[in-house]
């Protein structure tokens, strides 16, 4: 068991595993997302209040969910890297950040586009939108800190501390913002706080979520390979691969 983990932590070994894993994840992501898009955008019934407009949910909700998931994953990877001094875990955290920031941005953009027909404005200071915005700032701060060091080892460890502090703060930020908006604007958003969502609408959502997960897995594989190449560019084993 331990030797297996140690082997996994060695860059050449990990690189080969990722190389083998990536195409599977990539093709699976493509198929599942197409499937989810078909069921969500074509087959799911239109919402009785929001009409066809609600279908952006199938892009928006998985992105919002992934934005948090990636942040937690990034903080976990950073903690593993910091505690056990595993370089590969730091590389994984570094690979996560831009992807997570992109998911956050996608969730914000689609939420804003969704808000235009539903609320009549591009932006409202709604709890979910606002905490998503703060999450984007957290990602940007993490990336800014990482890029401001010349020494990669220091960048890894410093940004790992920030990611861990950030992940403790994420629930606090979430609940503070939620509390803040419920006190300020009681009725305007309840239209979107739907009652239990109907099953034919829910199933495509889960398919899309699985598709996003697979897509993220593929992206992570490729980005991690890129990180490994950048970090190991002078290593001998790279010549063997060609």
């Amino acid at each position: 068991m331990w030797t297996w983990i140690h082997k996994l932590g060695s860059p050449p070994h990990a690189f080969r595993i990722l190389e083998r894993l990536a195409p599977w994840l990539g093709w699976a992501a493509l198929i599942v997302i197409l499937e989810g898009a078909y069921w969500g955008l074509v087959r799911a019934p239109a919402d009785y209040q929001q009409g066809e407009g609600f279908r952006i949910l199938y892009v928006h909700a998985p992105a919002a969910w992934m934005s948090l998931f990636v942040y937690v994953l990034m903080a976990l990877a950073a903690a593993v890297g910091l505690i056990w001094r595993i370089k590969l875990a730091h590389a994984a955290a570094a690979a996560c950040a831009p992807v997570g920031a992109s998911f956050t941005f996608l969730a914000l953009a689609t939420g804003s586009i969704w808000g235009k027909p539903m609320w009549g404005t591009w932006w409202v200071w709604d709890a979910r939108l606002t905490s998503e915005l703060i999450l984007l700032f957290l990602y940007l701060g993490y990336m800014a800190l990482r890029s401001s060091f010349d020494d990669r080892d220091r960048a890894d460890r410093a940004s790992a501390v920030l990611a861990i502090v950030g992940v403790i703060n994420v629930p606090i930020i979430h609940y503070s913002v939620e509390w803040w908006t419920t006190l300020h604007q009681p009725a305007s958003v309840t239209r979107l706080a739907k009652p239990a969502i109907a099953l034919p609408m829910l199933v495509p959502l889960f398919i899309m979520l699985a598709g996003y997960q697979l897509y993220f897995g593929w992206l992570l594989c490729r980005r991690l390979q890129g990180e490994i190449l950048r970090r190991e560019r002078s290593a001998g084993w790279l010549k063997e691969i060609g």
Partner: protein
Amino acid sequence: MSEPAGLIGAMRLVVRRELTLAWRRWDEVTQPLIFYLVVTTLFPLATTPELAVLRTVGGGVVWVAALLSSLLALESVFRSDVEDGTMEQWVLSGQPLAWLLLAKVVAHWVMTGLPLVLVSPAVAAALGLPGSVWPVIVTSLALGTATLSVLGGIGAALTVGVRRGSVLLSLLVLPLAMPLLVFGARSVEQSLAGQSAAGPLQLLAAMFFLAWSLGPLAMSAAMRISVEG
């Protein structure tokens, strides 16, 4: 050679050293305070001089200005110590670094946070906030700036060796400090509306204890990375 100081003794020495240094470099203490006053002056100029209108946003203005001013002061909290090698001695001293940094942050708060808390009733009065909300403003700012000192201390320890660290520090710490702003401004608002501000104040106190118990550990981890790297 005197006996090596115990933990409490070492912390006391750190606090005394910081206060002595602050006494000798007085401008570093007054500048954040002046900045605070200047920023709060900007808001009436930018919006309206009418006190009735200012009163509605007064709590928020006081809080935003306090947040920015504290961050400005925190930017240099560890810089001179790292540059002249004092921090390396602390790391090597065998005393727990987290406690030494905590003492440093306490001293820093006494010099920059406390004056800001003390002048805030004057600022509040200038913004048309009635005397009945002053106790809430003072309490919430005291808890908030103390919490921010630890959050900013973590950020300052991370960015101490970095070029253009001050912008970066704000970028790192402000998102983390947003809950403080929410609860702080909210407590003033509730008190202004004649309600009890106990709820937000208790939440601020909870964040204060969380930051002061776990924060020094993060601060010392960050400082080791900055000094040893």
